[in-house]
């Protein structure tokens, strides 16, 4: 019992209770299933608040630890080890929030096999939360791979016309990246006297590096092995090819989670593992990562602009936005890294909102081609205002959340010692223009101009109460982080400082 009542164990595995209950509900009783899933997700959200209430934000270390010896074989000691610190607490809250929102958004959009859908969704939540909390590489890897399975089915069963192809590609692409990480994890574990426990690794590794037991080349190879796996997830240019397929084909709720949380698992991986475990390689790699990030920012923005499909535009915009996050992470200074962590949350909010809204109108129009749209503002004013907020949040308008993250990232990268050149940040700043170009294009083609085909052919209804309620939490956080980001920075500042102070910069 004591094991179950740990806040982090509870927040991770509580959705399983919902899965269990849903398993016993008749598949025909769709509303009962929906309500059970929603209540489970809301309860999980409350549990995450409860965990947050116990979180000491002045403490830079791992907290609320749930640590048990799990697998003991030969000399190996593998732990069930969950803990949270300033680097991950916001992402956990984002996960529980977006999970509840996504379930609400699937209320009327998903009509087929509701039971399986909700079961997969709750399972996905378990995996994602576990990824952000696991402090043992073995456990982390299990959660990491586990998220693939429900997501695979969500795309493959409830997706668009090319769902099987997209789901398979998503699965294989991510899997391929993970294999190298697995080898690296094993190598690390062997070198560090049979442990996968991250704090123990962090304690032992400096000695291994100093003694040359792990050579600088080996360290770099380990960095690359981890990086490859995470970079595919982010996705960093040029490893993004799975993303437009998965995003476009996924059902709305899947896209929201994919963009909002799953991509953050990649950036979080860099933050939690690459940077502290391989400090020298990190510093060596920083300019290269900055280069890839910069290319991604500009490339993603340009490619977004040329899309004819609304959802695909938003999908590619993630390549650009996550480029900013990577740039901030590898600035390796307090401004850049804090901005990057905040921007992970921001991207989840703003891109999540964009996908939600596109899904809401798609339910009525069944088209995502820009050429079918135009003049929606008049027909759907509330929808238009919501979209306006989401678009400008994504564009980084000051006063909204995106700006705070983007600005601190660029500021940090501009003066970063690790990147050692202001040119990357300088060119990345051009992304600010390009973002305005593609996002205003999106807004204009949908809401402004003369009436498009969707207006003349459908009798469009503005957002209903459920849809408004779905959006409200996102809008609240979009303004909150934009106007008063201090509490958020305060949460992550001590952990960021600790992370950076360990680097030989």
């Amino acid at each position: 019992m004591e094991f179950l009542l740990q806040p982090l164990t509870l927040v991770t595995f509580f959705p399983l209770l919902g899965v269990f209950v849903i398993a016993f509900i008749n598949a025909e009783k769709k509303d009962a299933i929906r309500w059970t899933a929603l209540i489970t997700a809301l309860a999980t959200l409350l549990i995450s608040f409860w965990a947050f209430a116990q979180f000491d934000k002045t403490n830079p270390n791992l907290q609320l630890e749930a640590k048990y010896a799990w697998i003991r074989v030969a000399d190996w000691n593998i732990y069930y080890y969950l803990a949270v610190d300033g680097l991950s607490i916001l992402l956990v809250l984002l996960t529980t929030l977006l999970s509840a929102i996504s379930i609400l958004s699937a209320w009327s959009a998903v009509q087929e096999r509701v039971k399986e859908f909700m079961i997969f969704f709750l399972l996905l939540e378990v995996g994602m939360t576990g990824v952000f909390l696991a402090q043992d590489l073995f456990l982390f890897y299990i959660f990491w791979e586990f998220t693939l399975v429900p997501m695979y089915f969500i795309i493959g069963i409830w997706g668009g016309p090319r769902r099987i192809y997209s789901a398979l590609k998503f699965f294989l692409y991510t899997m391929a990246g993970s294999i190298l990480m697995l080898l690296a994890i094993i190598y690390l574990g062997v070198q560090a006297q049979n442990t996968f426990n991250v704090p123990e690794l962090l304690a032992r590794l400096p000695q291994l590096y100093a003694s040359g037991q792990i050579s600088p080349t080996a360290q770099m190879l380990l960095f690359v092995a981890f990086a490859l796996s995470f970079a595919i997830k982010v996705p960093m240019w040029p490893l993004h090819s799975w993303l437009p397929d998965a995003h476009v084909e996924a059902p709305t709720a899947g896209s929201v989670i994919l963009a909002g949380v799953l991509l953050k698992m990649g950036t979080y991986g860099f933050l939690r593992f690459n940077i502290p475990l391989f400090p020298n390689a990190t510093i060596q790699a920083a300019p290269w990562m900055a280069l890839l990030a910069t290319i991604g920012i500009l490339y993603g923005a340009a490619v977004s602009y040329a899309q004819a499909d609304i959802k695909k535009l938003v999908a590619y915009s993630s390549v650009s936005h996550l480029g900013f996050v990577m740039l901030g992470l590898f600035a390796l200074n307090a401004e850049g890294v804090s901005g990057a962590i905040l921007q992970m949350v921001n991207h989840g909010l703003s891109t999540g909102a964009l996908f939600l809204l596109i899904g809401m109108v798609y339910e009525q129009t069944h088209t995502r081609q820009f050429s079918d749209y135009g003049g929606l503002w008049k027909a759907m004013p509330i929808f238009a205002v919501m979209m306006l907020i989401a678009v400008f949040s994504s564009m980084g308008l000051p006063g909204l959340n995106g700006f705070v993250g983007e600005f601190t990232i660029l500021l940090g990268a501009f003066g970063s010692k690790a990147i050692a050149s202001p040119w990357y940040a300088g060119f990345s700043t051009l992304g600010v223009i390009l973002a305005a170009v593609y996002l205003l294009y999106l807004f204009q083609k949908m809401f402004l101009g003369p009436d498009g085909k969707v207006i003349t052919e459908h009798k469009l209804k503005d957002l209903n109460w459920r849809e408004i309620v779905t959006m409200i939490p996102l809008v609240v956080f979009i303004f909150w982080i934009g106007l008063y980001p201090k509490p958020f920075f305060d949460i992550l500042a001590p952990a960021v400082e600790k992370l950076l102070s360990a680097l030989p910069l």
Partner: protein
Amino acid sequence: MHLSETMNSGFYYLAPLLVFAPLVGLLINGFFGKYLSEKVVGAIASLASGTTFLVAVLLAHSTALNHGQVVQVPFAAWIHAGGLQLDWTFRVDTLSTTMMLVVSGVGTLIHIYAIGYMHEDVRFKHDEARFSRFFVFLNLFILSMMILVSGDSYLMLFVGWEGVGLCSFLLIGFWYELDLLSLPSWSNSNAAKKAFITSRIGDVGFLIAMFLTFWHFGSLQFDAAFQAAPSVAQVSPGAITAITLFMLLGVAGKSAQIPLYVWLPDAMAGPTPVSALIHAATMVTAGIYLIARSAPVYSLVPQAQYIVALVGAATALFAATIAVGQYDIKKVLAYSTISQLGFMVAAVGSGAFVAGMFHLITHAFFKALLFLSAGSVILGIERGHHTHAHHAEPKGKKKKEEHAEVFDPGDMRNMGGLRKTMPTTFWVYVVGTLALAGIVPFSGFWSKDEILLETSLHYPLIYWLLTAAAFFTAFYMGRQIWLVFFGEPRSDAAKHSQESPPVMTIPLIVLAALSLLGGALNLPFSGFHNLTHWLSSTISGVESLPFNWGVAGMSTLLAVLALVVSWFLYGRNPLKEKQIDPLKKPLGWAFTGMENKWFVDELYRAVVIGPYERLAAFLADAVDWKFWHDFVHDTLIVGGFNGLTKTLLDRNVDQRGIDAFFNSWGAFAEWLSANLRKAQNGFIRTYALATLLGVVLILGYLILK
């Protein structure tokens, strides 16, 4: 000085109301506007703006009592990340209160005028429900502008800077489904987009200037940055030059200077009160405010200052020539605004910060007046057009056909003779024109004279460019007066045009009075340099020059000459219906250039926009999709994998002696690819499970070995 010490001696505690009064206004109208009558909506919005003005007056009063001391009113913590420690603090000093007064004063007048203007505008365009939205945006604009001018750091200023950009976007695209002729079109929304994106190009400059400021000066807070500036100038003067020039790019975007001015003429797609408030009197002057605010930095680098001045002067002359060749009443004023902003930029670039601010104030009066009068003219013509069309129309005809006829109420070639039908508008327009042309004793004369005088002393080239621009200014304004108000009506609409109601004309009369008397703020005679004295407590080292008869005489002479020439061309023989412009023949290609804005839009389309669109399409279709997605991933990787497994299974290969080890791998691959194929048929579960199982097996083996 900190708030606590001066709290009791002033109204500083009211500073947050600058922002919160319009916030309350916009929230009420935003949520309940559709249930309220037009008068109530207009009153709430005007009251909100009026409250801001009142607060600005009280703050100015307190500042005067405190002898111009800077007071920082802390409000909330904002961004605290690493070395970046910024709070939301209101800065009350003579420079910021000056801007507050101008923005909220002119803003409130325009709010009132807009009640009348929008009442008719929404009816002419058949969407009365949109009335309240206009005032929500207008209040949002005042709010953003107040953040801009009251910010205590570059970043806070930037928040307002982008906020007003958003409002500009929303208001230019207010009639987002129409074009200038009120026909269904993408044109207005394109204009809105163009304005935002062009300004954003400038914003990149501003952002980079901020990054440089932060890493070189250690802070984005004004006082801290300015304090660090002189010592940084000793060590790395290049950094300061870079900061000032990148900032200039931001100024060019917001204040419509070369090379980023192109958005402003298109911005006339917005309703006329918007053109007056945002695109003439207030938002576009934000760049001038920014340079005046950064005076301590600019003063350290004379070369950069010269470049700023040159950009301003070149813009002043260039835009003035284009204004000569325009036929749309608002387009003339738009290019005139660009030109006058050039004067201000040239002034602050030459270190004449007070002269620049002085011209900013008087320009806000007379250009707001001119735009609002132009709006009155356009509505007057619309009224004429509608009553005429109504009378001429045989009964029983459908309403739609009335609008089948395309009529441009803003085209000066459709006007003429309006002084008789719209006398009040005519007289205030004349006042605005004389002020803009720089005729004694109107306000524009004094402020422009101060700029010319300052530049004549330091930068002769700038002086001559501006003097030439001043000549053109008087000329195109004369041309406008003759074309619009004199001669005979050149259309039925003009013949039947009607004067505007008092809710519109009273703000015009107030602005006319300000345009006439505004020069009194800073008369160039000893004992009268009020503005200089006022601003000197914020901007150090400003000089007050004595009146110079030579410069003043020269500019007056040229202005009068230009008006006479314009009369000679347009007043003596008024334009007839369908007659081409009398300047077109003598000037030839030069006039074609002016008419077509020197083809700059076309140039940008060919050099920047077109290539970017093609590059984006190429990257998206060819590089990312056909090559990277289809070829590399689907053909090379998937095909290669399939090919490999087939090769390994091939009997010939097998028989040529591949040993059992590889054979087993081949079998494994066959098994895998068989699963893959199954997977593509929908049996992925098997594969997923198998892979997971495989991973676990490998792992298990490695752990146990």
